[in-house]
C-alpha cells in the first residue's frame, strides 16, 4: 500500500524539447494560450467530464501506472486529471512554467490514452480524451517531448514517421520483393496499380527497422492470390504521431494524404499492417478530424484480413505452430476495434496450444508503449517500463502456464513488451500474427 503523497519528491526528467519550449514561455503567454484554448478547443465533453466526477476512485484500479507504482494516488487516472485539468480550471490558466513542465510530463509520459479506465468509471468519463486535450494544450504552448516532436516533424516533412525519402521507400519494397522471390519466384509487390482490390499500407518503422514484415506480407498476399498494391508516393504510411502530440492540423493532413493516395489508385479498400495506433488514427480519430464519420474507404486491420483469408481458405495452414502461445490484446484494435475474438480465431486456426493472459480482451493491460509513450524516447524508458510491472506479472503468469511466445499484433506493443520482457528478465519471445501465419502456412511449390 502506498503511503504519503507529499513525502515523495517530484522527479523532473531532462528533456530538451520540453526544456526549450518552457524557455520560450512567460506567465502571461501561458495564461493567454490557456484561456484561448479553453474557450475554443474544449466543449461539452470536457465540461461534463470534469463536472460530474465524484472522486470515487474506481478508475484507479484500471490503470497500470497506478497499480505498478505501488498504488501511488498521483498515477490514478483521476489523480492525473486533478493535477492537470483540475489546476488549470481552478486557477483559470494562471499557472507558471513549472506547472507546464509537470503538465507535459503527465500528459505525455504517464498516460497511454488506452481507455481502460473508461471501462471502470461508472459514468464512462473518458480520461484518455481529457489527457489528449492536455497534450493539445502542450502542443499549442510549444512544450512537447523532443523525441515524439521529432517524429511529428518527420510526418510534416516527409508524410512518414521515420524521415524516409521517397526513393528509399520504393527501394525497400523492391529489396524485399527481390528477397521474397528467392522463396516464391513469381512474387510481386505491385506498385501504383490502379483499381486493385486492396491498398496495403504500413507504418514508417516497417521499411526502416522491420523490413521482414513487408516480405512476409508480400508472401501472404501472393499466396492468397489477392489483387493488391502499394503506392510509390508519400501516403503509404498510415502511422500518426501527430494525433498524440496534439498537432491535429498535421494529423488531418496525414490522414488526408493516406486516404487520397488510396483513392488516387482507385483501391476498393485499405488493408493495414499490424499496428494499433495507426488503426486508431485512420478508423477513429483522423477521419473525424477531416469530417468523415467513418473512414471514406473501408479499412481492414491485418488481424481481420488474416481471418478473412483463413475463412475463405485462400491461405491454408500446413502445420500448426507447435509452441504454446499467449496473446496480448492491443488497446487500439481491441477496445478500439473489437478484434479480440477474431484474433483468437486466427490463433486457433494456426496454433496448437493457446494460453489466455488474465485479464484479457477489452480488459487487457496496455503495453505502456502506446499513446506515443515509447516515441517520447529514452528519457522516459524506465518510467514506462517500471510503470507497467503489472504487465510483467501478467506475462509471468502466462509463462508459468507454459507460454513462451507472446503474440502481439501491434508495433507499439512489440516495442513496449520487448522492453518489459527484457527489464523483468522474462525470457519470452514476441511475434506478430503475420509471423505465425508466415511460418505455418502452405506456400506454393516451386515450379
Amino acid at each position: 500500500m502506498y503511503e504519503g503523497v507529499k513525502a515523495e519528491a517530484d522527479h523532473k526528467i531532462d528533456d530538451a524539447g520540453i526544456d526549450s519550449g518552457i524557455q520560450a514561455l512567460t506567465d502571461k503567454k501561458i495564461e493567454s494560450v490557456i484561456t484561448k484554448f479553453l474557450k475554443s478547443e474544449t466543449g461539452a465533453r470536457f465540461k461534463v467530464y470534469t463536472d460530474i466526477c465524484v472522486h470515487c476512485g474506481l478508475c484507479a484500479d484500471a490503470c497500470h501506472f497506478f497499480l505498478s507504482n505501488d498504488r501511488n494516488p498521483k498515477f490514478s487516472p483521476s489523480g492525473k486529471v486533478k493535477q492537470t485539468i483540475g489546476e488549470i480550471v481552478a486557477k483559470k490558466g494562471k499557472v507558471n512554467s513549472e506547472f507546464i513542465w509537470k503538465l507535459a510530463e503527465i500528459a505525455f509520459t504517464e498516460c497511454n490514452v488506452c481507455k481502460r479506465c473508461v471501462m471502470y468509471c461508472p459514468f464512462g468519463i473518458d480520461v484518455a480524451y481529457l489527457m489528449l486535450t492536455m497534450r493539445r494544450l502542450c502542443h499549442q504552448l510549444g512544450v512537447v517531448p523532443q523525441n515524439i516532436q521529432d517524429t511529428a516533424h518527420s510526418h510534416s516533412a516527409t508524410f512518414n514517421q521515420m524521415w524516409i525519402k521517397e526513393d528509399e521507400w520504393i527501394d525497400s519494397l523492391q529489396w524485399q520483393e527481390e528477397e521474397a522471390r528467392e522463396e516464391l519466384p513469381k512474387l510481386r509487390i505491385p506498385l501504383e496499380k490502379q483499381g486493385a482490390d486492396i491498398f496495403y499500407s504500413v507504418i514508417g518503422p516497417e521499411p526502416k527497422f522491420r523490413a521482414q514484415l513487408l516480405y512476409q506480407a508480400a508472401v501472404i498476399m501472393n499466396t492468397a492470390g489477392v489483387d493488391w498494391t502499394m503506392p510509390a508516393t508519400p501516403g503509404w504510411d498510415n502511422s500518426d504521431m501527430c494525433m498524440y502530440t496534439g498537432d491535429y492540423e498535421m494529423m488531418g493532413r496525414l490522414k488526408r494524404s493516406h486516404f487520397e493516395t488510396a483513392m488516387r489508385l482507385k483501391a476498393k479498400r485499405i488493408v493495414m499492417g499490424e499496428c494499433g495506433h495507426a488503426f486508431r488514427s485512420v478508423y477513429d480519430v483522423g477521419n473525424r478530424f477531416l469530417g468523415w464519420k467513418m473512414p471514406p474507404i473501408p479499412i481492414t486491420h491485418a488481424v481481420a484480413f488474416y481471418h478473412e483469408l483463413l475463412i475463405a481458405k485462400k491461405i491454408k495452414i500446413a502445420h500448426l505452430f507447435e509452441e504454446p502461445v499467449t496473446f496480448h490484446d492491443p488497446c487500439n484494435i481491441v477496445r478500439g476495434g473489437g478484434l479480440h475474438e477474431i484474433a483468437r480465431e486466427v490463433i486457433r486456426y494456426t496454433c496448437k496450444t493457446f494460453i489466455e493472459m488474465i485479464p484479457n480482451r477489452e480488459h487487457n493491460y496496455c503495453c505502456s508503449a502506446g499513446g506515443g509513450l515509447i516515441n517520447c524516447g529514452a528519457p522516459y524508458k524506465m518510467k514506462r517500463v517500471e510503470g507497467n510491472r503489472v504487465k510483467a506479472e501478467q506475462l509471468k503468469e502466462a509463462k508459468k502456464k507454459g507460454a513462451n511466445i507472446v503474440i502481439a499484433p501491434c508495433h507499439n506493443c512489440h516495442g513496449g513488451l520487448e522492453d518489459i520482457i527484457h527489464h523483468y528478465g522474462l525470457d519470452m519471445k514476441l511475434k506478430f500474427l503475420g509471423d505465425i501465419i508466415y511460418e505455418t502456412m502452405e506456400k506454393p511449390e516451386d515450379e
Partner: protein
Amino acid sequence: MHLIYNFVAGPLLWLTVIVFFGGSIYRILSILKMAHQKDIAVYAYFNPFYALRSVFHWIIPFANESMKKHPLLTIVSFAFHICLFLAPLFLFAHIILIKQSCNISWGYIPDIVADIMTVMVILSCIFFLIRRIRIPEIHYLSTRSDYIVLAIVAAPFITGFLAYHQWVAYDIISILHILSGEIMLMCIPFTKLNHALFFFLTRGYMGSEFGKVRHSRDW
C-alpha cells in the same frame, strides 16, 4: 414556529421547485447546446441501442468488471441510491403532505421499511466518508466540496430519522429536515450531485462509441 414553518414550506419550497427543476433543465439543455456547437460528434455517434446497453450494464449490480472488483462498495452504493430515491418518494408522511396540498397521491411503503432505508442511507454516507478518508487514492482526490456534498446528502436523512422518532427538539429538527431537503434538491443541478442528471448522457455516449464504432464492451 408558524412563521418559520410557513417560510420553509412556502416561498422556500417554491424556490426549491424552481431551482431544482429549472436548474436541471437549464443544465441539461445548455450542455446539449454546447455539444451541438462544439462537440457535434456526440450527436453523430450517439446510438440509442448501444447507449441503453451500456446504461443497463451500469445500473444492474455486478454487471461490469468494476463492480465485481469492489463488491462491498457495489452493495453499499446500490443500497444507498435505491434507498435515497425510494424512501423520500414513497414515505407515508410525504404522501400525506402532497395529498393535502396537491390532492394527488401514490403508493407508500410501511414506515418501518422507510425507517430502515433511512438508516441505510445514513450508514452508507458514513461508509463513503470513511472510504474517502482512509483510502489514499480517494483521499488524494477529495476536495472540501466532496465532504460538503456528502453532508448535504446525509442531512435530510439524519434529521428525518430524528424527527420521525421524536427523540429531541422535535420542532427544530423537523424544520431542519425540511430545510436540508430543500438544500439538497437545490444543489443537485449545481454540484457534483449533477451526476444524477448527466449519468445517462455520458454513459450512453460512451456506450455508443464502444458499441457502434469500436465494436467492444465498455463494462
